[in-house]
């Protein structure tokens, strides 16, 4: 049986979600999405520059990809809701990553505003993915509010520092009945692999891939690491504590006393 992540009727086989910011060009981004066989890509919404013609990023996202709209730029629940409604009106579907950040220094999410936006948007029929600090009580409230998954941060956005929130993410994985998708801060494929070994349903990576000297190659590396971590999780990870030989110690060239 194929291992798929089911979200809102969609079967996702590749558990590496890719963010589309910071790439040197849409063409490079497109190649990274294609080469890694990503099935979920995030985009953001911004005011257009009315003085110049702009390309449409959606033209560069492979048809296979589900597009998830990020509400980045929102500073409170109301702004996030407004962005989500605009995105839906633009015909991009109804998958919304709620990102509410007031703090420009650390770029940490505001869990309370994010919860408020989740409550409103889930009621309106959006498939809601709240980006959050990994807090169990708030995550439970997100679930009650109708979130499709929770997206705890690994470390602050764009830092490539890896999974610094491991203990807390592990608790979310153990306690929640909805998918846990680590988002933000993952810098190396090994970071993504650890998340998957812990039982996370997916990871979302943007900066590390986009700013790599070879974004296409790095996206593929992440994809393989995610697959490896997921396979390990499914197989079951043995966690021995006391030393135990992996080869027999007896019956070799001497008599045991």
């Amino acid at each position, binding site marked *: 049986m194929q291992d798929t992540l089911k979200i809102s009727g969609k079967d996702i086989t590749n558990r590496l979600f890719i*963010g*589309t*910011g*910071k*790439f040197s060009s*849409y063409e490079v*981004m497109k190649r990274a999405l294609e080469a890694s066989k990503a099935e979920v890509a*995030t*985009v*953001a*919404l*911004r*005011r*257009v520059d*009315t003085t110049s*013609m*702009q390309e*449409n*990023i*959606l033209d560069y996202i492979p048809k296979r990809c589900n597009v998830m*709209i*990020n509400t*980045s730029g929102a500073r409170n629940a109301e702004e996030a809701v407004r962005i989500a*409604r*605009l*995105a839906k*009106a*633009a015909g*991009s579907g109804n998958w919304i990553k709620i990102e509410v950040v007031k703090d420009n220094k650390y770029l940490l999410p505001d869990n309370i505003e994010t919860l408020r936006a989740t409550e409103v948007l889930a009621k309106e029929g959006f498939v809601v993915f709240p980006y959050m600090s990994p807090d169990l009580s708030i995550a439970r409230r997100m679930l009650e509010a109708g979130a499709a998954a929770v997206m705890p941060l690994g470390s602050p*956005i764009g830092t490539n520092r890896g999974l610094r929130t491991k203990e807390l993410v592990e608790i979310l994985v153990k306690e929640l009945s909805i998918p846990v998708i680590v*988002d*933000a801060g993952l810098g190396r494929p090994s970071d993504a692999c650890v998340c998957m070994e812990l039982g996370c349903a997916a990871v*979302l990576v*943007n*900066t590390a891939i986009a700013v790599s000297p070879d974004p296409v190659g790095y996206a593929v590396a992440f994809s393989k690491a995610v697959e490896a971590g997921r396979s390990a999780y499914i197989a079951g990870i043995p966690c021995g504590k006391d030393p135990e030989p992996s080869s027999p110690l007896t019956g070799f060239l001497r008599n045991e006393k």
Partner: protein
Amino acid sequence: MKIKINGKHEEIGKKLNLAELILEKRLCAEHIVVEHNLRIVPEKEWAEVSLHELDNIEIVSFVGGG
């Protein structure tokens, strides 16, 4: 007549409706969403929305983002 487009005041010479404004700005209708005084206006209604002094227009489109 003065209106606000994406947070900036702009002087438009004649009376326009939303469809005419989008055409004048040479924006591609397929790529954008337009909000008129906080109400999202579907493309098919653009021609019915005439602009008035101090109207607030937001025109947004998709960009790269994580």
